[in-house]
């Protein structure tokens, strides 16, 4: 029903900023940045055996940079920029812009800086504009994550001149202006934005950094109710609907009227955290008991509608593959659970609290209820708390939840990246909700970071996996699909690590 060159997408939330660099910018600002900014490089695509198209993490492709050389010890990277590229306002893209953009990304603070640091990009002195079209990065030590880190929607190339016109003393990086305005040179321009309502992208016809997108216009609408988003799609009033409950994807996939594409997310896990510093979860036996108690199958079918792969019931004797995520050796076995609890002296059960994120209730609430029901059989009395989305990070950071349901995925597809964020006691990031601190694991993680593949690397990862499966500060449950539903005439969907739609490749027939 929608025009051929217009894509209409509906999602629950919209961006609160056009620039992910701005303070408190939400995740959808990265979606916007992906469309309106170019980066130096990007990934290539690959087609999976089942026909799905996904990005290829192993392949780096030119975007603004047509070519690049890296010196032998990997500490100097030189990028040669496209000479015909312009920003949306028509001004040419130069190495000065790139340098300024990188300076900005490492200096802005908050998430962008941390993300840059993952690629060892921490200091403006590392970046030099060699000449008008040559840009150089100097690293203290080679890092295999540096190049992939240039692909993520953080080191976006911003129109320096335009932005600086709006910079102030308090805001030297003009974040306040780029928050509300498009300063990019990417394939799409933001032509209208009503925060909380809709954002309209229009194709930038002078875009040079890739193949011209087919869509002339993309309208992203915020529709709060998932039911409505499903209805809109089924009625053909929108082209793409994202963020539906797994049940809807499962049913629509079954019905076949619309196209549902579910790709296993990379470097992702959906799990139940147990706070190892809080009683009784400071006792490994109790954690293992719970890992044996969870109603995995029910969760898979009734909360996740099988839009995920099970991450339980592996054969521990076989050892763990050197990858992430891997399945845990646990499976529902109440007898074992009871025995373990008895060993821990808790056969009479206990009371505990399970926290879930209110913005994730469609999946987490039924899951929590299933867990509550199941644990009641072990005399464990679970109280469910719904934490408002806004408070969720603070709550995680406070490490005060005895039990919570959570998930994490890494933009960079390396197991140690996941470990660094979620298990590392030294780093102890927000996502280490179990407050787990195991120096042995931390050392292995650090070691893996600077190994670039090879048997040693594989051994390290397998050892790390074994530790967390034995210790279970976190009970693996599932490996989720990144689901999306669209009209049958919409093609060109590509799964990206950031899980957002890439409008460049979308075609309609």
């Amino acid at each position, binding site marked *: 029903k929608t025009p051929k060159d217009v894509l209409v997408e509906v999602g629950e939330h919209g961006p*609160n900023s056009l620039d992910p660099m701005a303070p408190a910018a939400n995740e959808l600002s990265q979606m916007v940045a992906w469309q309106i900014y170019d980066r130096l490089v990007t990934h290539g695509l690959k087609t999976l055996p089942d026909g799905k198209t996904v990005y290829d993490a192993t392949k780096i492709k030119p975007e603004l940079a047509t070519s690049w050389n890296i010196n032998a010890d990997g500490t100097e990277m030189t990028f040669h920029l496209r000479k015909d590229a312009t920003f949306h306002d028509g001004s040419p893209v130069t190495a000065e812009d790139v340098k300024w953009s990188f300076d900005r990304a490492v200096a802005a603070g908050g*998430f962008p800086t941390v993300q840059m640091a993952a690629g060892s990009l921490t200091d403006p002195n590392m970046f030099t504009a060699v000449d008008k079209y040559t840009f150089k990065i100097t690293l203290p030590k080679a890092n295999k994550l540096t190049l992939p880190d240039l692909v993520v929607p953080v080191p976006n190339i911003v129109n320096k001149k335009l932005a600086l016109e709006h910079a102030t003393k308090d805001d030297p990086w003009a974040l306040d202006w780029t928050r509300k305005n498009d300063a990019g040179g990417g394939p799409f321009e933001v032509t209208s934005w009503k925060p909380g309502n*809709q954002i309209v992208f229009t194709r930038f016809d002078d875009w040079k950094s890739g193949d011209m997108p087919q869509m002339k216009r993309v309208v992203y609408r915020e529709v*709060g109710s998932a039911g*409505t988003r499903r*209805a809109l799609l089924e009625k053909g009033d929108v082209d793409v609907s994202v963020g539906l409950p797994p049940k809807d994807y499962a049913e629509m996939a079954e019905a076949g009227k619309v196209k549902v594409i579910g790709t296993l997310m990379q470097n992702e896990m959906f799990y139940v955290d147990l706070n190892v510093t809080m009683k009784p979860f400071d006792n490994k036996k109790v954690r293992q008991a719970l890992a044996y108690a969870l109603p995995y199958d029910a969760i898979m079918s009734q909360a996740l509608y099988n839009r995920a792969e099970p991450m339980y019931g592996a054969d521990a004797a076989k050892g763990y593959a050197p990858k992430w995520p891997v399945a845990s050796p646990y499976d529902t076995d109440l007898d074992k659970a009871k025995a373990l609890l008895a060993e821990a002296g808790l056969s009479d059960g206990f009371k505990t609290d399970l926290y879930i994120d209110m913005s994730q209730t469609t999946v987490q609430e039924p899951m929590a209820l299933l867990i509550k029901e199941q644990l009641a059989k072990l005399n464990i009395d679970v109280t469910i708390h719904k934490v408002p989305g806004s408070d969720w990070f603070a709550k995680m950071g406070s490490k005060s939840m005895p039990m919570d349901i959570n998930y994490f995925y890494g933009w960079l597809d390396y197991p140690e990246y996941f470990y660094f964020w979620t298990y590392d006691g030294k780093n102890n*990031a*927000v996502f280490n909700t179990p407050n787990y601190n195991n120096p042995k694991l931390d050392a292995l993680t650090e070691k893996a970071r600077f190994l670039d593949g090879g048997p040693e690397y594989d051994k390290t990862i397998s050892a790390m996996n074994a530790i967390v499966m034995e210790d279970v500060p976190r009970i693996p449950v599932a490996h989720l699909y990144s689901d999306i539903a669209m009209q049958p005439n919409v093609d060109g969907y590509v799964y990206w690590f950031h899980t957002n739609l890439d409008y460049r490749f979308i075609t309609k027939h």
Partner: protein
Amino acid sequence: MPLLLTLLRRIGSAIPSVFGVILVTFVLARALPGDPAAYYAGASATPDSIAQIRSQLGLDQPLIVQFFGYLGQLAHGNLGQSTSSGQAVLSDLIERLPASIELTLTALMFALIVAIPLGIWAATRPGSWVDHLCRLLVTLGAAFPTFFTALTFVYIFYFQLDVAPEPLGRLSEIYYTMPPRVTGLLLIDTLLAGDPEAFRAAFAQLILPAISLGLFALAPIARVTRAAMLEALGSDYCRTARAMGLSRGRILFVIALRNAALPILNVLGMVFSFLLGANVLIEKVFAWPGIGAYAVNAVIASDYAAVQGFVLMMALLFIVLNLVVDLFASMADPRVRYDD
């Protein structure tokens, strides 16, 4: 000029409640769960960075200092910055207010157009089946949770019967061009722009949300209309009018209805308050880009500034509304003009 004086006095007497509203909102907003500092600090926060942001935002100061700071900001017309939309709260509200007003007014219109005749009809036949039926109907309308009605309507009229347009807010910008903003009310702006097609589309978008919202208002309006009409019709002056041989229509629609206007007007203020409250739910169902939906998100996201700004704007809106009601009331009834 008693009219003007009355208005001025009204405005004056509203000031304490505006202050009360500001205070209550401020306290309530601080009590919302969630730490804005942690929110700003984002996923990579450390206790230090959170503390730093907290002091940047002034959140480490005593509440009373924060409150006066807030008052000072208000005095400069600064309602702060919304965390969830990333915009200045004032511009968000101004952007979204017309949508809510248009929806609420249309709902009110619908309710008035249905409820007043029903109320009059019932009042002319008290105790008859008409009376009972009217009462049952409006009571039934008020018994449905608004979101239940709204969802049911969407399901039936959009999803099943396909007679209603998609519940995607106001005017679809994919097919229609937005008229230049004059009043912000699309029904008016489209006409001003001479775009009947867009008018039709904007109206079609309004029908379901307005009806599901308006159903709720039927009962109070019909009820006061009936009671006020019954009282007016049973009054001495209507008897006089009959004795003087005035026509039935004149007695019913001119004498009695005009006298009944005052209680009806007075209930409208309350109904409007109900409608704006229920708006919150309707806007969620219909993806209506109004301030109700904005408020829900703000409350759930602990978006202080947005919550405060929203409530303040509402309070001011009510004051204006009450003034309008007063104005109409004094037009409807000369006695009001002379009252204090």
